[in-house]
């Protein structure tokens, strides 16, 4: 094997290692969190970033041919599909859970949340302004 092929092997292995670490993090998060909507946050990471890193590593192994293009197509498809399936799953959870408010805060109207966020930002700004004076 020439030097270029060794470099290709090492870079590909690096990408696949990143992908495996992300998959492992995903599994750890799925068992660590206590509620579905929290677990979904960890699970959506592997769908896009984990499989992207793994397939980029395999694309480097494969070289420039049709297989590489198909793998790229898979990555692009999952970029679009993963957020949609996460959204649908969270809608399923929100629609079928009767005591959702036991797990998370529910805002009936978006304006209430916006008002609270604006108030907290103003409070933070006021504290930052007061801090250097005192």
């Amino acid at each position: 094997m020439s030097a270029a092929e060794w470099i290709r092997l090492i870079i590909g292995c690096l990408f696949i290692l990143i992908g495996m670490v992300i998959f492992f993090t995903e599994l750890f998060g799925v068992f660590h969190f206590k509620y579905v909507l929290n677990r979904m946050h960890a699970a959506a990471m592997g769908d896009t970033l984990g499989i992207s890193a793994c397939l980029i590593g395999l694309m480097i192994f494969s070289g420039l041919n049709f297989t590489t293009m198909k793998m790229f197509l898979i990555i692009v498809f999952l970029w679009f599909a993963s957020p949609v399936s996460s959204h649908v799953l969270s809608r399923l959870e929100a629609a079928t859970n009767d005591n959702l408010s036991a797990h998370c805060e529910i805002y009936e109207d978006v304006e209430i949340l916006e008002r609270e966020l604006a108030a907290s930002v103003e409070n933070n700004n006021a504290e930052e302004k007061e801090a250097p004076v005192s």
Partner: protein
Amino acid sequence: MNKELIYHPLFIFLLIVLSFMLLVCLIRAVKGPRVADRLMAVNMMGTMVMVMISVLALLLQEGYLVDICLIYAMISFLSVVVISKVYIGIYEEQHHSQETAEGGNTDERS
């Protein structure tokens, strides 16, 4: 040094690690207390199987396996969306039938 001698054990090792991760995902799917948990675990398993099929395509030097992987991605996405929609529909139907039954009872009482 021969190229096959490096890539072949690497791919086999990758497949073994991925299959263990798949088993852990299956535990989550069996354990998951809610339906959304199970569907999420199935989605994760689909992602890992996609990586496994791609590794297998390079291991066997067969390019068409990546086509199967693409179709697998589409079907797994479709299954998650369709099952969620169907489950929401069934749940709301049961809920409405219960509500109407309760409403009928209260009417009778009043």
